């Protein structure tokens, strides 16, 4: 049991930190520009594919640096020449723009790299087990993913709370109009934030790619979870996104470990439910089986009972 708790916690935190790498950029963009960037996970996918391609020529480590930079530049260009043009038609147009972009990126990726997963390998230097606990090994690469994302998180924290740029971004987060009125070049800040956000997503892609299968469906399967993180965490709150990322990472990992079903709960209350009862499989489904939808349940509940999210200060 202790073993299950320790490893589930480790994996949950790891998954949560990866989510945060994506959610941090998304929440910054969402809060400042009011754009729910549907294509955010596509930049994550681009990061993975760029990382894969670069790793084939010059190795994994250069890819770790080059791929996020490239994707960051692409992100900035998308903001400058795409979003900014669409901006004058309002948020709905922006939303639709990013929605379309996500499909275009997926199609492009399929055309260039094919529909089947690419063979993106863990670098040789990290292909060993970091430690063994209760007879279970923990791969060094996972340790690297964990440390890497914690490192980025700390860097982001310092940038936002200890620098002038961070100050402006923070101000723009909560009061975008006032920052503009004060004479700061808000469009430039937007472009930079969009670019850095996309770069962070790409970085997550580069490090997650070898461990979590680099395939054209990776963006579509991760995208919806990101929205859950942003909404649950709360608009305009990076710390909220951080807490929500960890929460969802842990929920998804631990839910898999739980075999309790509604029927079991009701049995304790003296009510016997079987597959034949009204509702059928609903009673018998274990928490493990419904694990994939738990985040969405959380999303719906948060929107009803706490519309500004766990730590947000504006309504979603």
């Amino acid at each position, binding site marked *: 049991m202790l073993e*299950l708790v320790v*490893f589930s916690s480790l994996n949950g935190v790891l998954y949560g930190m990866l989510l945060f790498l994506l959610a941090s950029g998304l929440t910054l963009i969402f809060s400042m520009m009011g754009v729910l960037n549907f294509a955010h996970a596509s930049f994550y996918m681009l990061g993975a594919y760029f990382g894969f391609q670069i790793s084939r020529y010059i190795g994994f480590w250069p890819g770790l640096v080059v791929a996020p930079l490239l994707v960051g530049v692409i992100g900035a260009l998308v903001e400058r020449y795409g979003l900014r043009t669409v901006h004058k038609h309002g948020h709905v147009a922006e939303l639709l723009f990013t929605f379309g972009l996500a499909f275009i990126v997926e199609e492009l990726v399929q055309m260039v790299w*094919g529909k089947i997963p690419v063979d993106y390998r863990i670098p040789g230097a990290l292909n060993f087990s970091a430690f063994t606990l209760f007879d279970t*090994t923990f791969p060094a690469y996972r340790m690297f993913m964990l440390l890497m994302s914690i490192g980025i998180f700390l860097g982001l924290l310092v940038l936002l709370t200890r620098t002038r740029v961070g100050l402006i971004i923070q101000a723009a987060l909560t009061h975008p109009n006032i920052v503009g009125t004060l004479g700061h070049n808000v469009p430039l800040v937007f472009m930079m934030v969009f670019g850095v956000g996309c770069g962070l997503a790409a970085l997550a892609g580069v490090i997650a790619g070898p461990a979590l299968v680099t395939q054209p469906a990776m963006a579509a399967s991760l995208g919806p979870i990101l929205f859950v993180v942003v909404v649950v965490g709360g608009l305009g709150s990076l710390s909220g996104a951080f807490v929500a990322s960890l929460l969802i990472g842990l929920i998804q990992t631990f839910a898999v470990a739980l075999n309790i079903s509604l029927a079991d709960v009701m049995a304790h209350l003296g009510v016997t439910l079987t597959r034949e009862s009204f509702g059928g499989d609903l009673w018998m489904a274990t928490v493990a089986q419904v694990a994939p939808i738990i985040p969405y349940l959380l999303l719906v509940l948060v929107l009803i009972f706490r519309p500004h999210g766990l730590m947000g200060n504006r309504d979603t």
Partner: protein
Amino acid sequence: MKQGTMQFLRAAALAAAASLASFGAGAQNIKIAYIDPLSGGGATIGEHGLKHLQFLVDTINAKGGVLGGQKLEAVAYDNKGSPQESLVQVQKAIDAGVRFITQGNGSGAAIAISEFISKYNERNPGKEVLYFNYAAVDPALTNEKCSYWHFRWDANSDIKMAALTNFMKDRKEIKKVYIIGQDYSFGHAVRGAAVAMLKQKRPDIQVVGDELHPLLKITDFTPYITKIKASGADSVITGNWGNDMSLLLKAAADAGLQVNWYTYYAGGAGGPTAIKQTGLDHRVFQISEWHTNVPSPSMEAFADSFLKKYGGDSGQGWWYLRMKNQMDMFAGALNQAKSADPKKVAVALSQMKFKNELGAETFMRASDHSLFQDMYISSFGSGTKHDEEKTGWGWKTMGVIKAQDTVIPTSCKMVTPS
């Protein structure tokens, strides 16, 4: 972009070759539509299955084709692994004039296709379509949901589980078993059969886990492996296929999980590589109709020539003797019927006896249209003649179940059209 360019060139070359071929042969070709996942979590095995079909069609055509010179032609449709999308693609194939359809990956899709074709044939007499199933093994397909227009070349899940549990029965070291499977009709069938048969054959074995996970959606099985580890299981039974098998084994390798695996499809894409990484030498078992180390000079040569042509970087070789049986029998039925009319082909197929490439007898049972053939239990490890995915490890036969011993009753009430 090297790989991308290569893929593009390859696709362009294939397209050019295909259009040339069809141009040359005109409308004479007998088309067979391949409807399987070519994108998504099942794409890796879907793509490789398509290469199997293409290779078989090429082989048959090179020997002079069928019906005294007509050529076969494979056409691919991507069903994305989904039953709904399968029906869209079947309709598309029918609209394009295809009368023979083959599919294998996923019993959910298989049941949908079989029901669709039955209805279609009922409404369109004279334009019948046949469905050749090379791998979807939900027992329902040849029992309560059987159809005259559906033919299956693989042993159904209950037959495979009976063979696996008979093998497990005598292995005294098995004490605790964990069952993990995909959450859809086939996964449910595997789990149900495993629990029932173990209870009957080895009541002392404790089932410590009974898990179903979403089909072809999971990219990291680590939480499941953690759970298997914590359960104290010494053996795992799984019917997983595609990425769900290779990623499960990969996560097990990463966590250093030391158990014996009793599987249906550990030999699929990426499986052998992951097993090698686990270091479990001859501790992963598979039940199948064939593996590369079944002694047979002609089949070994056939598999070698496929590997040479399509193996590529991954080193993935021939998997499906059953698809070869299917296409050889299809060609035989066309010749026997002296016609490409699906109705006449179905009559020829429905009780065909066939000696396969191994020289072994197989037979199609008329009462449920399922093929019975010898089944092999094999283990994966070192010291074999042929290896898989360039791992140096290969499959070794642990037991053979003769075709007549795999026959189990069917509840199918076949409706033969007049």
